[in-house]
């Protein structure tokens, strides 16, 4: 081939692919973007669920909608930083999974997904109120609820039986008494009061509410520094020393799983990941008598305090990012993923660890398989949000993100502050947020 002929053919190729046009437009070709949806999620505590996203969802959505799904997973505690960086730089994943009331904090970065929420809610019996409150800013849905991880106490049935507690304690006082005996037998309760996204707030907030404490009133005035809150911190202080593994002050969301599975603790507030891991590893995780560990695990809600029994469940939501050049494709993917036939493939492998955001799934046959998981079926019906009695808005999210309520208990439990001082400190910190 002569040089002139070669240049001619290359020139023709360039013209055919429209490179000149692309360069002139200063942006990547639309067809390449439209087919790719990049989703950022956490490393699921049920790894089989991530496998479904990569090995089932990705090929199927490619076939159904021509969308190339790129699934990226990271540690859940690192997601907010990724979201901030992506929003500020205007580039990053098309969809970001957010926890709890983070959609309120990142609301400016999300597109309106009210249409998807309306369709899914209408078709599937309605969305539970807790994920609704996390995802709605005014009347607009800034994120779409994907799942809820209910927090229930996983406990060793036989160990509680051995100390004469045949039924799981209904009140904090009863739980304290049982825990005291179990800790004396080197089988303490395991609970994190560390800086971590899941088990710490799902324990600390309901503990406060069950004694009548709350962050703010309905008008947004900080009312944390009350005798009810002090009473709850005082109780927790003693409860911690008498009944808990005190290493929990340095735990993240994974430590209690490991400690429970290795037989070091008798009970822990958790999603069902401990049970699911014991079930999937029946040959590996055994009781001291050699039986499969999962046969000795039951679940119970948090006990009641003087002012009632409360729960807080971790909401997992998907935000379609405003900066995304393929927000339309990202919404199409979400709509496709929430279709019952598709969603079912993901939710059944969760075995109840994560439950659907809509009520219709309570009727699914997956709940007939294992009675141990039944308490998770309806757990999402109850639950209060952070920032009660106000809304779970960005101020509530900031208070959570600074671990103010968790640290209120941690500081007293560690002996760093007296209960009254710790409550006063926490109220002061909240006061700086709710100005």
């Amino acid at each position: 081939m002569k040089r002139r002929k070669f240049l001619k053919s290359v020139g023709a190729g360039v013209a055919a692919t429209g490179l000149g046009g692309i360069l002139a437009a200063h942006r990547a070709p639309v067809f390449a973007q439209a087919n790719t949806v990049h989703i950022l999620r956490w490393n699921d505590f049920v790894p089989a669920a991530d496998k479904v996203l990569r090995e089932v969802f990705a090929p199927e959505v490619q076939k159904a909608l021509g969308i190339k799904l790129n699934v990226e997973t990271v540690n859940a505690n690192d997601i907010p930083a990724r979201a901030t960086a992506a929003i500020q730089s205007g580039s990053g994943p098309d969809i970001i999974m957010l926890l709890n009331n983070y959609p309120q904090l990142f609301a400016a970065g999300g597109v309106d997904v009210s249409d998807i929420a309306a369709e899914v809610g209408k078709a599937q019996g309605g969305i539970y109120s807790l994920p609704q409150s996390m995802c709605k800013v005014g009347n607009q849905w800034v994120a779409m609820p994907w799942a809820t991880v209910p927090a229930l106490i996983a406990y060793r049935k036989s160990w509680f039986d051995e100390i004469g507690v045949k039924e799981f304690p209904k009140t904090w006082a009863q739980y304290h008494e049982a825990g005291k005996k179990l800790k004396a037998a080197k089988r303490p309760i395991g609970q994190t009061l560390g800086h971590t996204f899941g088990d710490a707030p799902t324990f600390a907030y309901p503990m406060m509410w069950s004694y009548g404490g709350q962050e703010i009133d309905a008008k947004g005035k900080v009312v944390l520094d009350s005798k009810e809150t002090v009473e709850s911190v005082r109780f927790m202080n003693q409860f911690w020393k008498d009944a808990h593994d005190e290493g929990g002050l340095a735990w993240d969301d994974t430590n209690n799983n490991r400690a429970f599975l290795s037989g070091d603790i008798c009970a822990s507030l958790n999603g069902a990941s401990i049970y699911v891991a014991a079930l999937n590893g029946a040959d590996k995780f055994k009781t001291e008598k050699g039986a499969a560990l999962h046969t000795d695990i039951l679940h119970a809600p948090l006990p009641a305090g003087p002012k009632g029994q409360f729960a807080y469940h971790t909401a997992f939501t998907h935000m379609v990012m405003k900066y995304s050049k393929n927000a339309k494709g990202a919404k199409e993917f979400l709509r496709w993923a929430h279709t019952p036939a598709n969603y079912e493939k993901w939710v059944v492998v969760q075995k109840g660890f994560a439950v659907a955001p809509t009520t219709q799934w309570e009727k699914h046959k997956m709940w007939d398989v294992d009675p141990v998981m039944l308490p998770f079926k309806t757990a999402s019906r109850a639950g209060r949000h952070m920032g009660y009695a106000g809304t779970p808005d960005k101020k509530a999210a900031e208070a959570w993100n600074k671990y103010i309520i968790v640290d209120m208990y941690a500081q007293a439990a560690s002996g760093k502050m007296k209960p009254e001082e710790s409550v006063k400190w926490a109220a002061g910190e909240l006061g700086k947020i709710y100005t």
Partner: protein
Amino acid sequence: MVAPAERVRVSRLTLMLESEKLLATALLAPGVVILVLFIAYPFVMALWFSLTSIRVGVAGEFVGLANFAKAWNDTIFQTAFKNTVFYTFWATIFKLALGMWLALILNRHFRFKRLIRASMLLPFIIPTVLSAFAWRWMFDPTFSVMNWVLFHSGMITDRLPFLSDGDWAMWCAVLVNTWRGMPFFAITLLAGLQTISPDLHEAAALDGANAWHRFWHVTWPLLLPVTLVVVVFSVIQTFSDFQLIYVLTGGGPANSTHLIATYAYQVGVASGLLGEGAALSLFMFPVLFAVIWIQLRYMKRMEGA
């Protein structure tokens, strides 16, 4: 044969290179561009952010020094500031003492000297995130290998609260920082030691000076300029440390190990309050500026002497 036009071009280039001003400008330009892009621009942006109410996705407005005032009254920030000073002070003291001790040993002649000198750098070479994770496992509240060894050797009956007690956790962080930073001190001080003529030590020995006297009156004064530079670098790095604490304790328990950098990250990046986070991190600036100013002044005085 060279065309006249090309000859002129070559001679112009030569002329340009021969001009000291132009050559200096050309050589400095890449460095200046890098400094402006990656140091000055982010710094100016941080300054601007700190004066606004910017939060993630929302531009915010000018609020003057409100973010600084909020930080100043923030009890978690006050704790983080004290922690940062404590952490920097003790880690630097330990790194200096142990680094000096190690450098003096390595300055002697023994078998496998080169191999040992090279292996000593390992803690410094391993990425901080990886080594911090390894230490976190060793300090794990339930499965700590150190607790296991101490328990099975009968030295303890209850687990030691390495990371679950605030004071313990801070000392653990100081320990890990010392472990990681000591090789930098040792190698740099070793380089300094090797510039000291052995004749001086021999002369001092002949005059009857013992090992301690030789160190204090010969080695230490000659090593002081190098030591000062190493200490200043270390103070800057330790004061602005982030990775180690983020991985090891996440600032817990109950903010006991939060440093300015980790708290600024939590507020600015993880909570999206960019203006407040920028203000928090800028509190490091006057401290570090003072450290550098003292160093420069000292070096100027040394040059004068």
